[in-house]
């Protein structure tokens, strides 16, 4: 694989991950547990949709084939989306959502942080912006993780169950392929095994603070980055893409 092809694939995967998580958060609108959370959730969703647009526009420029952000979002099928599977998992209850956010964002913030120093200026610029947003998301997510873990008996049990449900998807975050490797060597992209070590250290400490146990479930083999999704994904994109695809000639 040529380095520029790897960079394009890598950028698209970032866009896909941001879009899919943004879409999941969008589904939560009007269902928040209180008004302040409604506002926070909409903010986070907006950040992710915004990041997806930036990654896709950059991918379109790298590709140079005249495609647009919407072509990537709306006119590709499931196997062409390279998001990690953790972010496509259904929202579940508020605890599931918080756990998904924390597990993903403690990884993502490190990925972005390295990318701010990568040698592709476009990607570095997007990462610099995104990393600030995610820092703010994480502050919110961590506060809730501790509140739920160390709140009532019910909240503790629920959020511990959420952790067990979502934990198996975490391994994929660190399971890079040749795209990650090439972007690492040629553009200074992140070293996933180094991130994994930091992530484990941080997450274990966070769970301890939240009085939660580190799940003993093994990490599953997952290949979201290569376009192999969970069954949930087909419904997510069917809903997201329906209107655009139903009227292919229309502009909106």
């Amino acid at each position, binding site marked *: 694989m040529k380095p520029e092809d790897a960079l394009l694939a890598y950028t698209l995967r970032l866009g896909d991950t941001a879009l899919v998580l943004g*879409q999941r958060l969008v589904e939560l609108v009007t269902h928040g*547990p209180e008004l302040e959370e*409604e506002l926070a959730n*909409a903010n986070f969703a907006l950040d992710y949709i915004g990041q997806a647009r930036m990654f896709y526009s950059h991918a379109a420029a790298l590709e140079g084939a005249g495609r647009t952000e919407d072509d990537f979002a709306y006119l590709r099928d499931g196997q062409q989306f390279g998001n990690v599977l953790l972010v496509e998992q259904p929202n579940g209850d508020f605890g599931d959502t918080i756990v998904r956010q924390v597990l993903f964002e403690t990884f993502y913030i490190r990925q972005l942080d390295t990318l701010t120093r990568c040698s592709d200026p476009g990607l570095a610029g997007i990462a610099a912006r995104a990393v600030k947003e995610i820092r703010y998301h994480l502050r919110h997510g961590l506060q809730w993780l501790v509140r739920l873990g160390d709140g009532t008996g019910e909240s503790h049990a629920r959020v511990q169950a959420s952790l067990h449900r979502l934990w198996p998807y975490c391994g994929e975050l660190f399971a890079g392929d040749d795209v990650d490797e090439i972007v690492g060597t040629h553009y200074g992209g992140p070293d996933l095994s180094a991130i994994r070590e930091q992530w484990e250290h941080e997450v274990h400490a966070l769970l301890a603070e939240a009085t939660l146990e580190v799940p003993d479930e093994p990490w599953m083999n997952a290949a979201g980055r290569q376009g192999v999704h969970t069954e949930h994904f087909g419904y997510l994109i069917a809903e997201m893409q329906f*209107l655009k695809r139903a*009227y292919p000639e229309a502009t909106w």
Partner: protein
Amino acid sequence: MYTQGLDQQGKTENRRDSLETPERLEAFQARIDAEEKIEAKDWMPEAYRRTLIRQISQHAHSEIIGMQPEGNWLTRAPSLKRKAILLAKVQDEAGHGLYLYGAAETLGISRDRMVADLLSGKAKYSSIFNYPTLNWADIGAIGWLVDGAAIMNQIPLCRCSYGPYARAMVRICKEESFHQRQGFEIMHVMANGSEDQKAMAQDALNRWWWPSLMMFGPSDKDSKHSAQSMAWKIKRFSNDELRQKFVDVTVPQADFLGLTVPDPDLRFDETSGHYCYGEIDWQEFHDVIAGNGPCNRQRMETRRRAQDDGAWVREAARAYAAKHAAKAA
């Protein structure tokens, strides 16, 4: 606007500190007449306080319930840009709800109590949000017509005699005009788009036109709160005046879009310089307010479910805060 003067409540809480002597009432009215702002700590007649609580909380509830019809299309928005714009709008509405609950709280009622009144069905919200959003042009029509009607009503509220409400409205009105423009833009693109899109735009206008006119509330002859609210400068124009203003502004916009306003009696009257419009179906209006609109039950169920599903979360937050307050003490 979102307030419509819909309430049927009437009980006063007993406030012994607020003896309403003729001198006090007169002095209060003199301040209003002098266009002074009444602030939260100032003395005010109980009926003034109650009227404001009713109106502001109704307005807040409308912002919150109003997120649902638009939220309905968020996952299906046809471009990422439209999705982001709509999401930002829906988020603004949540913010409006928050400021308005805050403004009402300055009058001595808690947000929890207001929310409980909404969920029990005691408090009302604008009837417009009990209509469904069935195609993407409905998102355009809501911005154009519903936010447009809201602005018409809310601009005068920026000068409302009650300071905290007036200030909340200044902030809100800025955002509402952005909402109106994005809605009109969606309509414009669709009305100039494919045949299918034009049909969607017309269909949306057909369904949203009359309910938008109903947003201004009952006609002046049937409006029971108007006269006192006018004297207190909570209201500055009558329902029918505002409705007329809305029609006069909006009909030329529909013409510009090439869409047909679904009113066979609509005509421009040269002598008055206003559009004359047909009779509003007041039976429909009262039905929707009484809870029998197309989406009343659905809207309330969604809100109740969110409240119920969030109960364990709010409880956890309280328990955590209490534990840590105890540790700190």
